[in-house]
């Protein structure tokens, strides 16, 4: 997540915010022609959902396509979408009754063939689906009748329903068969509430409300008729457009800028699933890092004044974390060991670990603001831990981290915007390639929880795992994120913690 694209953002922002106070009230262009003007700083990818990694492209895709199910995040309820009802036939077989009378943007009628062809295509590893976790639990999809399909699961997977809820969209089979992924990228066709009418890839996307969107859709009939999405990389330029009334929606405004803009435009802040953390190399992959010692890891947890860091840099309603997950996620137990800020205790722990003279470690940070990394390093220096701080692009950093070349890695994780701890601790503590801890006990607990259908059983095992993770101080959990949205004063928009903008729910005041 890039907070500011260039370092000059706040300087210029100050000039901008100060100078516009003399200008007239913004003209509300978007409301006048019923067009929601949106700006992203990053370019959306090709609009084949299965190959998108970035949030921008995924948001656009959810306006074009629908999944079998839908999750109402306000109530947590799973609602029928392209499927009207579903059931488990046996522990690894799900059956879906499909909705009748749904049409795609190109006029094709929706049926079981679309579901079967789409899902069977994208779960083939050769297709190159970007996130295997989204589809690797499916073995195959079978047609039972024109409006009935069965999903045979490859393994029990607790996140299955969550994934089917809008993350696995259904494409029109005939069209998809003809053009493949490139065809979907060139001209996306779905059943969603908006249809794409014009596209300059990465630059500009124009949408219109799809009048044929099926009745009874959990997304409903959108109140706003048109969407125009543009890429404006520079935040200050976005602010200028907002203040001039030519832009209605933008996001990821840094906290200091948000407070300056709040008097001029509508600024809304919302919590998201993403959390910041420092991971420690515990196995070391053959290297003898001080972080292999639990006492050192606990010392680090005691040495960093997270309360102060959150207050100074995170902004909004961010809070200090104790467990290695977001408290908003299912299974994120909070009754774990808490490491309060206690530099003296940290020093004592280091002495006990045999580092009375202090120690040196390297910490790489990626996709995190430099001031926060520097604050952590400064706190650690106070107890005698001398940190060599290096900033890297996420890809370069994570590559070193996975290779075991770093004792500590400071970054963040968004859990795919999903409110379930399976999407965070299973990856980092489940024994896979991203698990640099390899704690046998934790791996077993996570595996039990991941494959159980019973929520209480899952909760219990995740809690045990999280307790052990905290007790062993495998991570230094930092804080959860909030993001600020800059909106036209005339717009009604509700942010959601999964970082998916739902413009089909937006309206004009």
């Amino acid at each position, binding site marked *: 997540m890039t907070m500011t694209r260039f370092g000059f953002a706040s300087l210029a922002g100050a000039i901008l915010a100060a100078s516009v106070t003399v200008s007239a009230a913004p003209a509300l262009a978007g409301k006048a022609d019923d067009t929601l003007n949106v700006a992203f700083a990053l370019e959306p990818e090709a609009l084949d959902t299965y190959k998108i990694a970035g949030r921008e492209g995924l948001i656009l895709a959810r306006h074009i396509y629908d999944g079998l199910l839908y999750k109402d995040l306000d109530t947590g309820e799973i609602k029928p979408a392209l499927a009207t009802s579903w059931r488990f036939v046996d522990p690894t077989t799900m059956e879906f009754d499909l909705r009748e009378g749904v049409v795609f943007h190109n006029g094709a009628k929706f049926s079981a063939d679309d579901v079967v062809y789409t899902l069977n295509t994208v779960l083939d590893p050769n297709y190159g689906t970007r996130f295997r976790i989204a589809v690797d639990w499916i073995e195959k999809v079978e047609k039972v009748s024109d409006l009935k399909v069965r999903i045979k699961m490859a393994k029990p997977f607790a996140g299955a329903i969550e994934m089917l809820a809008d993350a696995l969209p259904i494409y029109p089979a005939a069209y998809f068969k003809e053009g493949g992924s490139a065809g979907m990228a060139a001209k996306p066709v779905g059943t969603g509430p908006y249809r794409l009418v014009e596209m*300059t890839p990465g630059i500009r996307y124009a949408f219109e409300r799809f009048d044929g969107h099926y009745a009874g859709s959990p997304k409903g009939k959108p109140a706003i008729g048109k969407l125009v999405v543009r890429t404006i990389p520079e935040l200050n330029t976005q602010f200028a457009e907002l203040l001039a009334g030519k832009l209605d929606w933008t996001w990821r405004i840094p906290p200091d800028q948000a407070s300056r803009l709040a008097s001029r435009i509508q600024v809304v802040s919302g919590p998201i699933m993403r959390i910041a953390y420092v991971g420690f190399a515990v196995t070391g992959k053959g290297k003898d890092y001080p972080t292999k010692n639990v006492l050192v890891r606990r010392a680090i947890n005691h040495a960093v004044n997270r309360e102060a860091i959150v207050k100074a840099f995170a902004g909004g309603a961010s809070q200090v974390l104790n467990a290695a997950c977001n408290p908003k996620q299912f299974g994120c137990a909070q009754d774990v060991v808490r490491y309060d800020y206690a530099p003296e205790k940290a020093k004592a722990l280091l002495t006990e670990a045999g580092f009375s003279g202090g120690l040196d470690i390297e910490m790489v940070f990626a996709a995190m603001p430099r001031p926060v990394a520097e604050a952590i390093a400064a706190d650690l220096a106070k107890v005698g831990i001398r940190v060599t701080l290096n900033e890297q692009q996420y890809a370069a950093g994570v590559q070193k981290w996975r290779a075991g070349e770093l004792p500590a890695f400071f970054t963040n994780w968004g859990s795919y915007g999903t409110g379930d701890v399976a999407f965070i601790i299973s990856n980092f503590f489940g024994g896979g390639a991203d698990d640099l801890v390899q704690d046998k006990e934790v791996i077993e607990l996570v595996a039990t929880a991941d494959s159980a259908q019973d929520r209480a059983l899952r909760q219990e095992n995740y809690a045990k795992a999280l307790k052990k993770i905290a007790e062993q101080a495998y991570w230094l959990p930092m804080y959860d994120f909030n993001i600020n949205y800059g909106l036209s004063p005339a717009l009604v928009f509700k942010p959601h913690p999964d970082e998916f903008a739902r413009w089909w729910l937006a309206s004009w005041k």
Partner: protein
Amino acid sequence: MLPFLTRRLIVAALVALAVSAVSFGLMFVAGDPAVVLAGQAGRAQDVEIIRQAYGLDRPMPLQFFSWIGKALTGDFGTSLYFNLPVGAIIAERLPVTLILGSAAFLLALLVSVPLGILASIRPGSALDRAALMLAVFGQAIPSFWLGLILIVVFGVWWSLVPISGTETWQGYILPVIVLSYYAMPALMRMTRAGMIDVLGADYIRTAQAKGLPRIRILLIHALRNAILPLVSLAAVQFGMMLSGSIVIESVFAINGMGRLAWESLLRSDLPVVQAIILILSLIYVTLTTIADLINAWLDPRLRSA
């Protein structure tokens, strides 16, 4: 002239090829493209699948030669990010940069060359100092700052021009001004210095003694000689403008080659990066070759060099 031209063209082609090969290698040094493509939510397993799906597991020289082989036939491959032909993406963005760069270059020349000549007539005069001030400001003001100030004044306060984007021709006005402003100081000072140098030469005194009109001496006798270094500098400046300014394109949300190159680098979109580098190195090489030819035409002594 023909052997000179042939020699220049062979060197030009070799330079473009070498730039391409080096940059290809650097992309892999900078970070594993498969990890970048997997994105921040990508797990170690996802990276392996991407590596195979995009053929990134093949030996690097093999990847390079298979790429260059196709590129020579005009097939730049498919963008890993947009899943669209690279040629189509570049066709979308190159014209934007060409318009912006050419307009800014022309504006810069139209302002800086006459100013440089005027300043050189009486060094130390008020006009010379004013021109110098313009040059100092031009070099000292950061382009993002100037861009944002212009946006606030002309876009937000007075609503005279669009704030960002190039959907209409008015959208080009501010970025052309900002981009050209950065080329002006060097061009102007080069013109001024060259002219002052030449105006002190013996043949100018002879021309004056012959009683030739002052304007003729300035524009025909002096400028032709003073302009040689300017032509080389102008070629490089023009090349820079055509390769796009990342900062200016970002500030004005212009989707030209500069930003496409920058964004593609960040997301390891290898085919796009390679195509841009090839095209830009060709543009540079062509421009410097043209500059050499113009200079050779202006000054016959250079032809045998």
